[in-house]
């Protein structure tokens, strides 16, 4: 049957879709859609401006923006080389390193936070050394927020870029070598430009992940207005004191998420 036949006529010819599939499909869609619709419907739109202008909201918003932008920069600076090494440099234990890089994807964020405390907390393995030698303490600072965000976002970025590097093909690296290019030149002028779609998609994923990050942050960095309270932490706090503000702030995050999704779909998620 040709592709240009409309779906309805295909359905008509093949028979009715079975209820056993249609009913669960509808339930699944409702589960995803209803909470978001009620969130939009129940948002006190008249008071939005007033609720968003409080100091706590402004501080949380700017901290979230700052943390997510710095997280993306960290991903670019650390994740790009990591993805390149995983995609291009064979070394013993590479598959182990790749697996270790991916683990945070499936790790409950709270566990990530506990792990970060174990490593970098005041009494943590590295944290104690940092404190003894340099007098630096990380937990409950904005730095801790960025570290927690990078920890949970980096795997998304590395996976995306490594995939792009693999599909960009090592053949082009070989061509560049026959043309006298060293590996740094090849990376800069050939490999990275070819992997650019993956870099952009990875950055967007990392940014979105950072925007919504809650569990690892609140565990490792706490929830202090002005220094470590991000939007999700603020929502959590407000839900207990002023649910209306919580909804409004949630609305802001929802709008941002939808914008990211739309951007991704248009530019990078649909293949030409």
């Amino acid at each position, binding site marked *: 049957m040709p592709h240009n036949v409309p779906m309805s006529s295909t359905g008509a010819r093949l028979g009715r879709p079975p209820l056993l599939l249609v009913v669960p499909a509808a339930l699944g869609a409702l589960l995803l859609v209803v909470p978001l619709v009620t969130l939009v419907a129940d948002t006190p739109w008249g008071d939005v401006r007033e609720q968003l202008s409080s100091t706590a909201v402004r501080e949380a918003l700017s901290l979230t923006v700052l943390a997510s932008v710095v997280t993306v920069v960290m991903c670019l600076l650390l994740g790009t080389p990591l993805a390149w090494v995983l995609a291009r440099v064979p070394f013993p234990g590479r598959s182990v390193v790749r697996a270790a890089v991916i683990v945070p994807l499936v790790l409950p964020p709270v566990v990530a936070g506990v792990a970060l405390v174990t490593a970098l907390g005041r009494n943590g393995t590295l944290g104690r050394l940092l404190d003894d030698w340099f007098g630096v303490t990380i937990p409950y600072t904005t730095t801790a927020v960025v570290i927690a965000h990078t920890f949970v976002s980096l795997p998304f970025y590395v996976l995306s870029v490594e995939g792009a590097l693999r599909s960009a093909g090592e053949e082009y690296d070989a061509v560049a*070598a026959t043309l006298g*290019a*060293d590996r740094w030149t090849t990376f800069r002028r*050939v490999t990275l430009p*070819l992997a650019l779609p993956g870099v952009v998609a990875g950055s967007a994923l990392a940014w979105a992940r950072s925007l919504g990050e809650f569990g690892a942050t609140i565990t490792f960095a706490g929830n202090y207005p002005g220094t470590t309270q991000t939007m999700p932490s603020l929502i959590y706090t407000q839900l207990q004191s002023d649910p209306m503000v919580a909804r409004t702030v949630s609305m802001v995050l929802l709008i941002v998420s939808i914008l990211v999704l739309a951007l991704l779909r248009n530019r990078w998620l649909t293949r030409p």
Partner: protein
Amino acid sequence: MSGLELGLTVPGRVSVAAVAQPGQVVGVIGPNGAGKSSLLRAVAGLVPSRGEVRVDDRGWSELPVRERDVGMAFQDQLLFPHLTALENVAFGPRNRGASRAAARSTAQDWLDRFGVGDLGRRKPRQLSGGQAQRVAIARALATDPRVLLLDEPFAGLDVGVAAGLRVELARHLASYDGVTLLVTHDAIDALTLADVVWVLEDGELAQVGPPREVAARPLTRHVARLVGLNVLRENGRFRSFSPSSVTVSPAEPAGSARHRWPGTVTSLAPHGDAVRILVTGEHELLADVTPAAVAELELAPGRHVWLSVKETAVDTYDAEREGD
């Protein structure tokens, strides 16, 4: 000596000991999997190999790819998709130390020579197959390499486009003073472009010689097929004869023909004014018959026939292989 001296082995793929003079074009032919591409990649240093690669008396074996003075045109061109045609060609000279302006002017020069000078601003996806292959060869030559490696430069091109490019390439290769290794699966490429032919089979050199000699007295089934000859090996000697000298009969011929074989027709294809049939029996043999004979003898796949050839039509020769 100057030129290319090879004594190299790519484990499990190919093993070649041979020399080529400066300015010489070596046609490397052989069936799929014979090791043609591996040989080229080993000379470029792209696959690990054992043994010696010497170019103009300089050992290359220990050199990384980028320090080997090669120009390589790959089978599917592999033009950098994010760079323009001009930037692709300028990439090599730039890496070899030319200034940006000098590299671009060299690149423009090479594009002009291949007749694609006005396409410099296009991206590879905006080029036709023939144009892209011209840019790829220009890119390989732009670094003025001592060894030029061309891997199936006409593969995937339309017949007419390939013919045009072949003529152009012949002109450039005539004025090129380095060694060219040209991998091809096309007898015409080997016959028209090469000064000497290396026939690879199962990873080893099976025949080396001038194209005319290799075509007239092939030592491998593959080359025999390429040039359209039947070649049989009997008692260490080779017998070749043209498909047009083969007689096809429905039953065992009673005449004077000394060589006769029964077999089954496996395929038919137009060949000039005639029809070329492939008959499989003890050997695989080609025979050219007239369309009228096809109808008369009811030749079709599966038909059982007898082939015969007169002794006077058979060329008998020895395998003149070194160390054989």
